[in-house]
């Protein structure tokens, strides 16, 4: 069964789909909550504002499905605003609630960072506790990824921060909690390391689906 890439009108959806297909993903682009609920893995792309994104996800009936998908242990990848909406709330254009799947608040990059939004390539430093995670396999610590954002995820539990990037302030650029992964950068635009991360996710998702189908068979998550 194909993984679900959620279509709620995010501007980077086509390029996320192209990149996932390029690394061999079997996927369906969907805005159907039933399809998302049934999918073996889910990708939530995103560009733009958290408030708009939350409105779209609610209108489509997807907002209530995502916590279920994550709680069910399905591999989940959030990208950029698709990471930010996982948090409890966002300060962008006035404090408003988000999906509250991960405790924390989306905050504006500090003025001390210089120009906001941050646009360009910046380094991701992996947390030692997460360095061996299959999502990060074969990606050198300190690799550059492409960022376009004005807000960042202030994650309450530092144990979930798998990668950190500095722009004015250190901020979580990779977040991992069991089956849940999210990145602030755009892997679909981050050249070979971005493609590697997506390939790692696809591999992880396929291994996971395999484990669900054949619970007695141990499958390697490495690629």
């Amino acid at each position, binding site marked *: 069964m194909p993984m679900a890439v959620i279509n709620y009108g995010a*501007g*980077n959806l*086509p*390029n996320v789909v*192209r*990149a996932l297909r*390029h690394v061999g993903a079997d996927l369906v682009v969907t805005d159907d909550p039933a399809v998302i609920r049934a999918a073996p893995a889910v990708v939530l792309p995103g*560009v*733009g*504002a958290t408030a708009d994104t939350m409105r779209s996800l609610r209108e489509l009936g997807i907002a209530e499905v995502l916590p279920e998908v994550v709680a069910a242990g399905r591999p989940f990848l959030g990208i950029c605003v698709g990471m930010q909406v996982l948090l409890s709330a966002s300060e962008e254009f006035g404090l408003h609630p988000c999906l509250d799947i991960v405790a924390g608040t989306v905050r504006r990059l500090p003025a001390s960072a210089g*120009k*906001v*939004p*941050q*646009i*360009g*390539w*910046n*380094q991701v430093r992996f947390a030692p506790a997460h360095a061996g995670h299959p999502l990060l396999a074969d990606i050198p610590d300190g*690799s*550059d990824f*492409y*960022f*376009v954002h004005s807000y960042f995820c202030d994650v309450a539990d530092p144990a979930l921060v798998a990668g950190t990037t*500095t*722009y004015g302030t250190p901020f979580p650029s990779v977040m991992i909690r069991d089956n849940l992964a999210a990145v602030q950068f755009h892997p*679909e*635009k*981050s*050249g070979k390391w*971005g*493609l590697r991360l997506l390939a790692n996710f696809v591999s992880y998702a396929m291994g996971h689906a395999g484990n669900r189908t054949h619970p007695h068979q141990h499958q390697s998550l490495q690629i």
Partner: protein
Amino acid sequence: MLTRRIIPCLDVKAGRVVKGVAFLNHRDAGDPVALAAAYNEAGADELVFYDITASSDERAIMVEVVERTAEQVFIPLTVGGGIRSTDDMYRMLRAGADKVSINTAAVLNPRLIAEGAQRFGSQCIVLSIDARRVSAPGEPPRWAVFTHTGANPRPTGLDAIAWARRGAELGAGEICINSMDADGQKTGYDLALLRAVAEAVPVPVIASGGVGNPEHMYQGLSEGLADAVLAASIFHFGEYSVAEVKQYLRERGVPVRGA
């Protein structure tokens, strides 16, 4: 640390890459999709396709070029040239562009910047400005905005610094500033122009026009305060590789993206 970006720019006409010297005398340098892939492998941080096509038939070819590029090149891609409406923007973004660059159309209708930013986000909208120095020698420098650059540039009456500031206020996410005086001369960017724009706007500034060697890029990023440098012919004709430029910059303490 946020790195400075090296951006090869490909002028495309009817699906083929050309490069003008001072916007004239175009020479054919190949297939844009193949060149984009080559630049990606060479370490380019971003790519710009500038469509110098005149007819709508040829515009359709550009959409197809963008689609084919987006299938195999996974770094940011900006498309400029001939974008006059948010529907034009949508067509290029849907084809796989990450940003669109607008120039003449924004001068004629500044609301286009705001409409594009509102519909697609500021990060998608690059305001490209062609500027020429109009102050007399000895006067404080002033630059005016021109449109329809090429054989018959038209003055707009706009001051380049004021227009850059206005563009950012309207929602442009980046400003690309091209010196018409320096363009094609290979004598370096107009550093005073770059610096004046960079100090005037809160968004990233891309330097364009006049680069002939890596030292010029270093000057644009240091003295010129640019966040990114655009270059065409020095890369297209193999005078310098992206890796050589990055090595040069790295040795001088400019943060650049590694392999």
